[in-house]
């Protein structure tokens, strides 16, 4: 049996991804407002679900509430996919997302209880980006395009483009880790600046290869253009955030320009990683037999023995 497109499921996955992006923004606001320890206890806030919403508590408690909503939405996604999804690997990815969101919640709690230890804070920031990317991938896997896209003939050029697309996504992940390490005071700015240069070169080069490998696949083209735009925006936002921080070094409290530029940089970073990952997946979907086999589609092209149909 083959996977079928479910508009409701796809929209729900999209809503979960959108809520996760909102959660990332809320988390960024916590750090930028230096509010991570404004609520000294966890999992409750001041021993209750309704703490006094003043000052830094507004950011920290809102972050916790949105995190709870994302956690519940992820459980909903797992249940929905568990009941209806025929591709076992998609179900497994959903379970992984649930495990990640729980681990992420625990990491968030540890940051509070252990007064923001840098490795835990950096792990919390990185995990957030990975979780968002995973949910974004589930949006792609449940899309009509993924389920119906026609494969292209595999060539050396497509294999090369796909390899580069994967390495670009991994490079962006490494760059986000460097950014988190700078933000949490573990590393200076230099590695993150060098990383930005590397990401710019990698995305430009990969973009060329992808354009040649799949020139007529609208989804791949859209993701490629979106990725280039995001990388450009991200570099401008990063420079802006850095300028705001340097300009306000004497400030005795976080100022709006520092906060919003940094949070926008963080959110754009998450979108960049997700888009780079989706670009790789979309390319893989149309240019390699792996993706075709694993969608459980194209029975006419591939014999049923090669398909992973999941539950029958």
């Amino acid at each position, binding site marked *: 049996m083959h996977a079928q497109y479910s508009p409701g499921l796809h929209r729900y996955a999209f809503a979960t991804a959108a809520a996760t992006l909102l959660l990332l923004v809320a988390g960024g606001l916590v750090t930028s*407002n*230096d*509010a*991570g*320890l*404004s*609520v*000294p*206890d*966890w*999992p409750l806030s*001041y021993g209750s679900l309704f703490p*006094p919403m*003043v*000052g*830094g*508590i*507004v950011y920290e408690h809102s972050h916790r509430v949105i995190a709870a909503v994302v956690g519940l939405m992820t*459980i909903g996604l*797992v*249940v929905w*996919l*568990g*009941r209806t999804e025929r591709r076992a690997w998609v*179900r497994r990815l*959903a*379970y992984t997302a*649930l*495990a990640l969101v*729980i681990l992420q*919640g*625990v990491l968030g*709690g540890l940051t509070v*209880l*252990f*007064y923001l230890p840098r490795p835990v804070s950096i792990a919390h920031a990185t995990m957030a980006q990975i979780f968002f990317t995973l949910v974004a991938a589930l949006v792609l896997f449940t899309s009509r395009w993924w389920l119906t896209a026609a494969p292209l003939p595999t060539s050396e050029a497509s294999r090369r483009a796909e390899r580069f697309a994967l390495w670009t996504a991994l490079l962006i992940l490494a760059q986000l880790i460097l950014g988190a390490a700078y933000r949490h005071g573990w590393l200076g700015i230099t590695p993150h600046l060098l990383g930005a240069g590397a990401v710019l070169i990698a995305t430009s080069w990969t973009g060329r290869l992808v354009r040649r490998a799949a020139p007529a696949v609208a989804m791949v083209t859209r993701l490629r253009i979106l990725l280039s735009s995001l990388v450009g925006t991200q570099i401008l936002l990063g420079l802006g955030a850095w300028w705001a921080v340097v300009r306000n070094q*004497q*400030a*005795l*409290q*976080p*100022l709006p320009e520092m906060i919003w530029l940094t949070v926008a940089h963080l959110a754009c970073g998450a979108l960049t990683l997700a888009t780079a990952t989706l670009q790789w997946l979309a390319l893989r979907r149309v240019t390699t037999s792996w993706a075709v086999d694993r969608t459980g589609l194209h029975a006419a092209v591939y014999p049923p023995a090669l398909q992973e149909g999941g*539950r029958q």
Partner: protein
Amino acid sequence: MKAHVLLILLSAILAFGSLGCGKKEEAPTTAPETPAAGKTVDPATAGTISGIVKFTGTPPPPVRLRMDADAACARLHPGPVTVREVETGANGGLARVVVYVKEGLEGYTFPPATEAIELDQEGCMYQPRVLAVRTGQPIEIVNSDDTTHNIHPIPKVNREWNRSQPPKGEKIVDSFARQEVAIPVKCNIHPWMQAYIAVIAHPYFQVTGEAGTFELKNLPPGTYTLEAWHEKLGTTTQQVTLGPNETKTVEFVFQGS
């Protein structure tokens, strides 16, 4: 179906298990750091080091604080609130400098300080901004405001803690066991709130007022390294040799940009 039910169940157990982990064990307040029973100060030979801490140059302009994150704080200040990190007096004296004997008292023992020192939160600001206490000396933290504060000292060698205090809530009393000059204290609810607590193992220290002057009385004869610590300008030291019943005058100068 079974697999995903199992995973959800496992995740729930993990999540609830983590709740049970509870808060990090707070290390008990250890006994203050005091040298093993040793010499005591003989008042018959003790002397005094006094002096002034000066600032030369142009002090940085006052920084305006934005308290609009908490209406209760903003209400308390009808006009703009500013902070001068470098506070100078009329004669160039520098305020809020901790002057203390850094070296030279090794081998002496001193009776513990038991009188509590108050750190108030008033107008969503710490009062005073710079505080000096003995190791083990109780610090009474008061919240005079109509809003919640959290008190979060960020020491390097002492035990870190973070506690909340409701509006006009009960006093929090704590102390620091090890010498540390100085521990930054923050309120993460109101990020503009900042204080510093200098913790010193002996009684020879003072925080300067606007005149910048200090006086360390009843010091036994000896050679001392005196340090002046300022929250923004850093530290500067001087060596002073004090004879029996002698009074020495010292001047510290911090250079502005």
